[in-house]
């Protein structure tokens, strides 16, 4: 039904567009002094017909359910509802809905049956009412908007204003979503810090979140020191960046400055394929191929290492990140004007000198963008770490050890049998908040670096 309504609105909007456009054309034919092009007249009418109806439909759908629920409950005999708690009421309500949908498990009582019939009827009425209201609104809007059109009417300005409004609306949605996410993180984290003191969390060096969920379980008391988790994250991310930044950057330099057209034609799509591989695939590549190889190599030179190691996870993650860095650096380097490059070459600089002294400094902001994007990927990546690095938080900087990362811990804390108010669950939010703060700080630092070293061309 809602689908049909949307379709109807679309059709009406199209019709409105043509009505407006036709009117605009006739103005243009009769008089050269029209203010707006016919297309703008059309768009103006279309906006006025389509948008209010759309808003009405959305609001209707959002508000319809609670109203009908209220009505249905009100219709129940007093014996059923009087003295019932809200929870009981919602149980009754869902039974009614089940019956209405035909999912009957036991023979319902006559009261419930009657209420279910009522429920179905109300829903039908609401649907048709929505349809009728929307159509009426659109017809009204069509008449009003059409009557406004005139040769000197500023339809273009109106449409322009609508577009501005749309853009603002969209950016506000984006911002509000971000704010909402942060707020929920902060709220739940505060809840967590009420149970586990902040300093214990930030400065603690033991991370053992396996605590009893129910009273009767046997488990550790739990320790929520975040340091080993963060060192694990940073260790793996650094290894990944050590792999990805040089390889990605040099790949970009090669592609921009040294490779000929044929090589570029092959290498660029290959890199894009690399970016399209799901991280799960990288994960089992790490576990099944790289880890045994690294272990065998370690064994050959007499180093004993655990099957899960930060080195393997970080290294494979680095490979995953290469395309981000190479493709953004590639764009940044290509964007440096050719005249800069020619200027340097004409001074008798070699290609390498030109690259180091002119192209790279000018492309720093774009390259830094790529590095940051890669770093966020590295810090946020979960799959590879789960599969290849392990779950136990060890405080170590040895890349051959098994470590764990923030994201992995968040996942393991939220899957499985958990209660929503146990510190174990809430810790996930606190970790999320910390992670957010760390990445934010990294971003700010990177921006500073860019501002300091960038050489702006224009």
């Amino acid at each position: 039904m809602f689908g049909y309504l949307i379709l109807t609105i679309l059709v009406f909007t199209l019709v409105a567009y043509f009505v407006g456009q036709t009117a605009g054309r006739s103005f243009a034919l009769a008089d050269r002094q029209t203010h707006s092009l016919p297309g703008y007249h059309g768009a103006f009418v279309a906006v006025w017909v389509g948008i209010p109806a759309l808003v009405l439909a959305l609001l209707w759908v959002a508000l319809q359910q609670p109203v009908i629920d209220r009505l249905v409950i009100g219709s129940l005999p007093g014996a059923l509802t009087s003295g019932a708690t809200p929870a009981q009421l919602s149980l009754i309500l869902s039974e009614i809905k089940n019956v209405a949908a035909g999912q009957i498990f036991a023979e319902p009582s006559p009261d419930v049956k009657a209420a279910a019939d009522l429920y179905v009827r109300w829903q039908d009425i609401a649907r048709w009412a929505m349809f009728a209201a929307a159509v009426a609104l659109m017809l009204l809007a069509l008449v009003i908007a059409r009557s406004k059109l005139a040769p000197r009417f500023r339809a273009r300005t109106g449409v322009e204003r609508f577009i501005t409004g749309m853009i603002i609306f969209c950016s506000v949605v984006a911002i509000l979503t971000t704010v909402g996410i942060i707020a929920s993180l902060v709220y739940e984290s505060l809840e967590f810090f009420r149970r586990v003191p902040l300093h214990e969390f930030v400065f603690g060096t033991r991370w053992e979140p396996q605590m009893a969920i129910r009273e009767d379980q046997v488990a550790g008391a739990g320790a929520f020191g975040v340091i080993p988790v963060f060192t694990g994250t940073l260790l793996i991310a650094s290894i990944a960046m050590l792999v990805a930044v040089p390889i990605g950057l040099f790949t970009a330099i090669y592609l921009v400055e040294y490779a000929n057209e044929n090589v570029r034609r092959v290498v660029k799509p290959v890199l894009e394929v690399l970016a399209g591989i799901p991280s799960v695939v990288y994960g089992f590549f790490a576990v099944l191929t790289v880890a045994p190889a690294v272990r065998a190599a370690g064994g050959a030179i007499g180093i004993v290492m655990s099957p899960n190691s930060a080195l393997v996870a970080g290294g494979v993650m680095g490979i995953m990140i290469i395309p981000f860095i190479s493709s953004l650096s590639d764009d940044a380097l290509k964007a440096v004007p050719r005249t800069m490059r020619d200027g340097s070459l004409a001074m008798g600089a070699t290609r390498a000198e030109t690259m180091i002294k002119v192209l790279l400094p000018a492309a720093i902001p774009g390259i830094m963008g790529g590095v940051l994007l890669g770093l966020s990927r590295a810090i946020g990546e979960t799959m590879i770490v789960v599969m290849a690095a392990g779950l136990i938080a060890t405080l170590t900087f040895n890349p051959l050890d098994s470590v764990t990362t923030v994201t992995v811990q968040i996942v393991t804390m939220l899957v499985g049998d958990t209660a929503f108010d146990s510190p174990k669950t809430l810790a996930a939010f606190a970790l999320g908040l910390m992670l957010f703060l760390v990445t934010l700080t990294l971003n700010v630092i990177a921006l500073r670096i860019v501002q300091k070293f960038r050489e702006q061309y224009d």
Partner: protein
Amino acid sequence: MNVMQQATTSPIEIRTPKMPAMEGRAVSVFYGQKQALYDVSLAIERNQVTSLIGPSGCGKSTFLRCLNRMNDTIDICRVTGEIRLDDEDIYNRDIDVVELRARVGMVFQKPNPFPKSIYENVAYGPRIHGLTRSKIELDEIVTSSLRRAGLFDEVKDRLNEPGTGLSGGQQQRLCIARAIATRPEVLLMDEPCSALDPIATAVIEELIDELRENFTIVIVTHSMQQAARVSQKTAFFHLGKLIEEGHTSDLFTNPKNKQTQDYITGRIG
């Protein structure tokens, strides 16, 4: 305009024969399948200003870019023939392009200072070629180059500000300073004044005239007056061919070729 008088009255003494600084022999250039220059042979005399004129697309820039092998940076470009610098073919296999470009500098049509400080712009060449041993020497080169480009007084208080923050004319003089800081033997200029107002143009023309003492200069220009003012030798190109060359005063007052005459009187172009 004393520049003009200077330029048109001076060229008597340089008619004494000397070995040319550079010489193109039967130079042809192809961009892919398309031929842009046909068998051009032209000598660039030492310590003279040679101007290349001709209608748009006739191959002036192409010829100029052959002289320091900047055409190498264009993948599809192919050069045949010979170009001699001090009796060495610069398209020879064992010529080091980097060294060649240090000897044959270039100033582009559009000012292209690096997004570095004014000082760093001028110091760029001396640095990469290791021309100086100390900071003092480098300072000395930077100041003298800026001074010769007639820019020093305007920028002496802000040598550490970005070169891109200068006006168009200043930027072009900065590029000239940058080019002469490597002490090239030949200086190539591709329409160096096309983005400048008459005053900045006069400054640069004056500068070119002074630079002639120490450098050999080749300049591409669309302004016949400019060619007449600054150059001693002029070459006229048309559709990729060298139509006529000669002493500037001769060529302008007494062109031998019909096409040249049409061009300088404004009938083709």
